[in-house]
């Protein structure tokens, strides 16, 4: 009895949050999934249970294939680019550099800006006009004699999504840098020194002493970038609107809900987005909570 009295007040205090999370996160995820399994393809019909039909039939739609391919290209370029650039910036800074605070502040400031504002300036920079009509980066390339670098950017049929990843890299690599910098600084200096005394070259010190320390940070960065990437929406809308040429699942879902007025289809796409994130986030959360306990 006394033990119950000891923890009951705590439970009561968090009850509002528990209810909110239960309803708004888990309840609504379930509700959405359930909606995806009905034939409610307009806003008035009741919606009969049709099992996984929508999940299967979505693959018959060319637009779905396009948006999935786009998401894959975007994710690879964005996650890879931000990880490499963020690591490089941290690597260049980790041994100390004059004015480190200023460098850090400037690399990081894009994080404080909305994807919409970022999208607006990058849409200008990545304008597809060339030569006479060129503005943005194409004009810059043209005027410094690098005119062969001009291309259609995000309007390119095949690699447009790689261009779309550039503003996202601009925005997020400072964050990755900060994570890696914290990782580098977490390596005890004595360990490096000891390895050097043992005759290790700087490369070996990095490979065998520093790198293992960076593993958890790299994993965190991967998870964060990955889940941002798979649900990317604002940036795409701000750069190119709802055009097919830059379609991704999140934009397709928006169109399904607001333009096609097809809740079941929107819910199906949303379920796929959730599943794509859950397959790597759930194991990661379980792993990191376990690790914290030890």
């Amino acid at each position, binding site marked *: 009895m006394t033990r119950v009295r000891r*923890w009951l007040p*705590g*439970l009561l*205090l*968090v009850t509002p*949050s528990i209810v*909110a*999370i239960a309803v*708004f*996160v888990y309840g*609504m*995820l379930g509700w959405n999934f359930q*909606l995806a399994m009905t034939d409610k393809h307009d806003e008035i019909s009741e919606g009969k249970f049709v099992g996984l039909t929508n999940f299967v039939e979505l693959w018959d739609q060319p637009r779905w294939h396009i948006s999935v391919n786009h998401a894959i290209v975007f994710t690879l370029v964005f996650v890879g680019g931000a990880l490499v650039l963020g690591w490089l*910036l941290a690597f*260049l*800074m980790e*041994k100390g*550099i004059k004015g480190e605070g200023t*460098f850090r502040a*400037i*690399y990081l*400031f*894009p994080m*404080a800006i*909305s994807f*919409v*504002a*970022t*999208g*607006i*300036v990058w849409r*200008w920079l990545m304008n597809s006009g060339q030569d006479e*009509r*060129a*503005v943005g980066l194409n*004009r*810059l390339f043209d005027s410094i004699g690098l005119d062969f670098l001009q291309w259609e950017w995000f309007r390119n049929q095949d690699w447009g999504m790689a261009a779309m990843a550039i503003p996202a890299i*601009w925005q997020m690599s400072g964050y990755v840098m*900060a*994570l890696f910098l*914290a990782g580098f600084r977490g390596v005890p200096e004595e360990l490096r020194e000891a390895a050097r005394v043992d005759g290790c070259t700087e490369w070996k010190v990095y490979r065998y002493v520093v790198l293992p320390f960076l593993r958890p940070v790299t994993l*965190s*960065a991967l998870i*964060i970038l990955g*889940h941002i990437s*798979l*649900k990317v*929406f*604002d940036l795409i809308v701000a750069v190119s609107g709802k055009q097919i040429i830059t379609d991704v699942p999140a934009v397709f879902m928006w169109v399904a*809900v607001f333009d096609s007025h097809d809740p079941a289809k*929107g819910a199906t*796409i*949303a*379920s796929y*987005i*959730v599943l794509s*994130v859950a397959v790597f986030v*759930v194991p990661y*959360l379980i792993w990191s909570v376990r690790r914290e*306990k030890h």
Partner: protein
Amino acid sequence: MTSVAQAPPDRSRARARISYGIRLTLLILFLVIFLIPVYVLLATSFKPLTEADPGQAWNLPGTWTFEAWRVAWEKLRPGLVNSFLLAVPGSLISAILGSMNGYVLSKWRFPGSDLLFTLFLFGMFIPYQGVMIPLVQVMVNLGVYGGIPGLILAHVVYGIPICTLIFRNYYVTIPDELIEASRVDGAGMLRTFWSVVLPVSAPAFAVVIIWQFTSMWNDFLFAVFLTGPQSWPATVLLNNIAGAQATPYSQQMAAAILSSIPTMIIYILLGRFFMRGLMAGALKG
């Protein structure tokens, strides 16, 4: 003899200096690349319409004018007001909830509280698309669809995981003995929270308020799905202004800067706390 003995340190010192130079050069190069969009935003926003042709795209304005800023301000003002009405109360409510949850989950645990915390954390990573259609339905049923209160509700609820995480990780560093001592003195949970925990919570409050303010200010997805034209925050209005074919670049850029000023001020003045929020997002204290 001595010169031979001194050679290695000399050479390694020279090498260190060269490596420092290379690193500094590369960092400055990246700095310039990072700042290109800032130059474009500023230079374009001060240009008169007469200098809008592609040939002058990268030039500084020939004549500087505030015209684009004036028009952008007029168009964007309702959105800026809405964003403040959203982000100020929203971030305060988030912080209060987060501090209560973090306190309980670190100092007043109950059976299953660790599992509960894990379940909370998943809420941090869910793509909001996955709850959006039911959420719209619930907002309609509650009668708050389309307005700012509904948007605040959504942000506060989906902000619970990150706010709880930040406060919990902060409170873990308070010695248990302090809590125990207060308990022995006969203080209950709320009393201890009020008189022992809250007085030392200012840094965590700063981190959470800044984090939530920034994410509410910058949010676009919830706003597009949940609000009507009267309640559109700055991001939605900005997207509409920039999306209209007739809007000149100078106005688009001025509007983009205007919409970013509040979060930029926070970043410049309170960057330290902003960083801590970012780090918490990586699940590390």
